[in-house]
């Protein structure tokens, strides 16, 4: 779900960054009064937990070869409350950007909004709303799943909106939106299920952690799982059929959603088949040209001519730059060799 630099214009990026900064600043100030010194380490570690949790994958039922893993925003919001959840996830997003180069520097503001702020608050609000009142297991289920699904939908919807605001969408907006929503429906559902399951586990072995969020006993009952699954299968089925019939290219976006984390010892080792599959899809569908939708979205045909006429200068530019780089590299090499000889 990471937004990329390339999908944004500078004003939108700056605007989002300003909103994110204001939001985070506000939360930090607000939270400072309620955060005791003991919570500092806890929040830091839980941030690291979210990272590690993304390593834990498991097989998804319908799609052999794919694996789900969880993002954790809603889980943390449920356990820690939305403010702390939001701060923890924001710092995760920042680290992902800085150290793992996931999503660009420019997209950081958008990513904080999409991945941290929106899911934390939306998810927490939904979970609390659904589970308010007398406790029963089914409610906790539906609450967590709903919270994850809707929170995920909310943040998924933001990506195309931000891209469209930036005016850089090559893909038609509705296609992009529907695709994002469709894909994240499934992701959200799985995340929801696993969130309840984790809550259930915690309740079993460390009830003190979840007393506030789970006032009663939650069971991984078959019935509850089935009921939730049935409801959501219908919704997903509808979504997917819509997708598949109408906007075939939507599937590419699902591939884009694969975890683009650095690959630690090949846990996520199916990148290449993914890309191959995407290529195949593209090859198939590129036979069905569809011009009418786009000309309104793109406005830089004028530049094409410029590009064509500027052929030689461009050439000079590229060649010159390349030559410069080679030169820099060579000089550095020579210098380093000399240094090593002296040492």
């Amino acid at each position, binding site marked *: 779900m990471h937004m990329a630099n390339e999908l944004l214009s500078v004003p939108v990026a700056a605007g989002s960054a300003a909103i994110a900064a204001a939001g985070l600043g506000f939360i930090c100030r607000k939270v400072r009064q309620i955060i005791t010194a003991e919570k500092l380490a806890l929040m830091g570690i839980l941030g690291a937990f979210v990272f590690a949790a993304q390593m834990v994958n498991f097989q998804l039922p319908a799609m052999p070869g794919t694996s789900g893993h969880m993002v954790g925003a809603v889980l943390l919001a449920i356990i820690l409350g939305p403010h702390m959840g939001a701060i923890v996830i924001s710092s995760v997003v920042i680290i992902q950007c800085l150290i793992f180069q996931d999503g660009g520097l420019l997209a950081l503001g958008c990513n904080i909004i999409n991945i941290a702020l929106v899911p934390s608050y939306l998810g927490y609000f939904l979970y609390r709303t659904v589970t308010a009142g007398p406790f029963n297991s089914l409610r906790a289920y539906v609450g967590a799943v709903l919270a994850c699904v809707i929170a995920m939908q909310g943040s998924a919807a933001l990506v195309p909106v931000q891209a469209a605001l930036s005016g850089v969408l090559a893909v038609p907006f509705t296609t992009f939106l529907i695709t994002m929503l469709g894909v994240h429906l499934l992701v959200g559902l799985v995340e929801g299920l696993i969130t309840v399951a984790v809550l259930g586990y915690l309740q079993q072995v460390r009830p003190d952690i979840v007393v506030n969020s789970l006032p009663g006993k939650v069971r991984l009952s078959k019935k509850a799982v089935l009921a939730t699954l049935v409801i959501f299968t219908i919704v997903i089925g509808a979504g997917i059929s819509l997708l598949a019939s109408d906007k075939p*290219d939507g599937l590419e976006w699902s591939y884009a959603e694969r975890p*683009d984390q650095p690959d630690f010892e090949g846990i996520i080792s199916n990148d290449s088949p993914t890309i191959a599959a995407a290529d195949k899809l593209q090859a198939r569908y590129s036979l069905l040209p569809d011009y009418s939708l786009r000309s309104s979205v793109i406005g830089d045909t004028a530049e094409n001519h410029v590009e064509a006429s500027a052929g030689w200068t461009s050439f000079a530019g590229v060649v010159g730059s390349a030559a410069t780089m080679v030169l820099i590299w060579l000089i550095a090499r020579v210098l380093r060799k000399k240094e090593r000889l002296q040492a």
Partner: protein
Amino acid sequence: MHHAHIDKFAYQDSPVHRLDSRVKFIVVLVFTALVISLPRTSVSILACYAVGPFAILVLAGIPLRFVFKHILLVSPFVLILALSCPLYDKTPVSVAFGPFLWNTSVGWMRCFTILGKFTVTMLALIALISTTRFNDLLTGLQRLGLPRLLVIQLGFLYRYIFVLIDRAHRILRARAGRRLRRLKFRAELQIAASMLGSLFIRSIDAAEHINIAMQARGFDGNWRTLSKLQIRRCDLFFLLAAVVFMLGIYFFVKPILL
């Protein structure tokens, strides 16, 4: 505890490494914004921009193999983004490039621009990260106004990501050693949840211990660190050079190349 390879070059020493982290951060930020705001059909101008981060990387002695491997590693999302462009825009366009002439589509041009922008901005970001110790970067960001709470958070996060990722890996190994076939979805779900839950509990235990360690050393809620940051003359020089480079390309080279 050995995922150090992600930022292992940050601990080297070179003139670039010694620059102030704030200056580097701001330069990279502005550079990224500049590159992203370039028009969507020009690839050649991007090549000129690439010279900057490239020079920094070389000067800092970061192996280029490492850099490009890393860029490849994080590219899948953008790759798909870029490759979907030719599908949507088939407006034919002919591109003259020196002695060559291509008949292609706007979509492909875009695809190349996106990849170009991605590469150049990544070069800049990697140049920043692999020449700046994370701690210095954090101190710098704090001076630039990042809330204290977030700075502390990020410090802890940086410290414990590796510990917990290793732990997660070991748990995964324990599962892999005993999981000899695929189970039903519900079982898979429950196992994954158990693994996450136990990871969570142990994270909380670790947090309790760390809290004790902090209190034992007199921590009273006020976070104190010694900052070694200081803007020196070479930082200003670097800033000047960066500004000249960026403005130069923006005002003199860009009009020619477009």
